[in-house]
């Protein structure tokens, strides 16, 4: 019989392992439309519930304290989301990737801009925001949606509050 502390920790780790394996399989077999933070959150919830069901029916002699297992799993998921979003969206990681595959690990600024142009950076982001309904397009011009306007107002207010310059 293992201690409740160990079984609770193992429960969270098992739920995370199930999430990660499903995530890898789904990301490798599906198209770009499926991949995103929303799907990661959905997979995380499904994985936790699945492991809880397995535990309830098959392993209920192991004590699992969900008041500790759920926060630990949520923490692991938040850490993973940091990593995922960072790798997916970071300009710096993209630049480092371009340099890593370049001959001798070096590129001129012009070569780098050819491989990863400002135009691409903007278009990629705008496309994502249109798909997520943050921006609305009409005749090649973009306007913010209602939810984006609210977020923009909050961002401006917070930047002023913290004294952050308006750059990015």
């Amino acid at each position, binding site marked *: 019989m293992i201690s409740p*502390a160990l079984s609770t920790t193992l429960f969270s780790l098992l739920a995370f392992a199930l999430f990660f394996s499903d995530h890898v399989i789904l990301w490798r077999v599906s198209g770009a439309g499926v991949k995103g933070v929303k799907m990661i959150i959905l997979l995380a919830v499904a994985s936790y519930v699945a492991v809880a069901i397995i535990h309830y029916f098959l392993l209920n002699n192991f004590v699992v304290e969900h008041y500790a297992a759920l926060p630990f799993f949520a923490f692991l998921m*938040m850490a993973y989301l940091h990593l995922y979003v960072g790798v997916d969206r970071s300009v710096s990681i993209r630049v480092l990737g371009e*340099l890593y595959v370049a001959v001798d*690990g070096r590129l*001129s600024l012009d070569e780098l801009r050819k491989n990863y142009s400002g135009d691409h950076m903007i278009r990629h982001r*705008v496309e994502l925001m249109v798909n997520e309904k*943050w921006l609305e397009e009409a005749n090649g011009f*973009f306007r913010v949606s209602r939810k984006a306007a609210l977020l923009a107002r909050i961002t401006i207010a*917070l930047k002023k509050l913290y004294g952050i310059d308006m750059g990015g």
Partner: protein
Amino acid sequence: MKLLVITILSAVLIPLVHFLLAHVYKLQYSRAIAMLGAFAVYFIVCLSGAFYFGKPGFLCYMAVCSTAGFFCLGYMEAFSMICRGFSLHIMVDVYESKSLDIEGIKMKYGAGKGIDWLFNKRIANMRELGLVDVGGGILKIRPLGALVGRAGLLMKNGLKMGAGG
């Protein structure tokens, strides 16, 4: 359960202490240090709560520390987005201009500084962090940068995430 509610409610301390440290104590030269200070205060409050009100034991501390860690990481991500979030800044630029096309977004980016400014700023940051060397218009990756670049590519290829960025 009571302990988790206290930990969740105490999360409001993070922005408050961060703001106070950054402004009252003039830590504006490094908002990151002020943020770490806010996290430290939050953890101290949560662990004190666990010590006084909770069942002493591993699970109790695990629940409190995980919840506190969850909020700290969430705040870090939100604050990072406000400071450096590319998409969020495009959204703010479009909001302030009412309507913009792609060329307009490129020129307006970062309160009119433009997309080249962002690119140069990121390269300067990578240089400061010792990830790349820059000289004569050439970027050369350093060992730490190669490690990060390789790890990023491994994850992108493993998950078929595309080029990203």
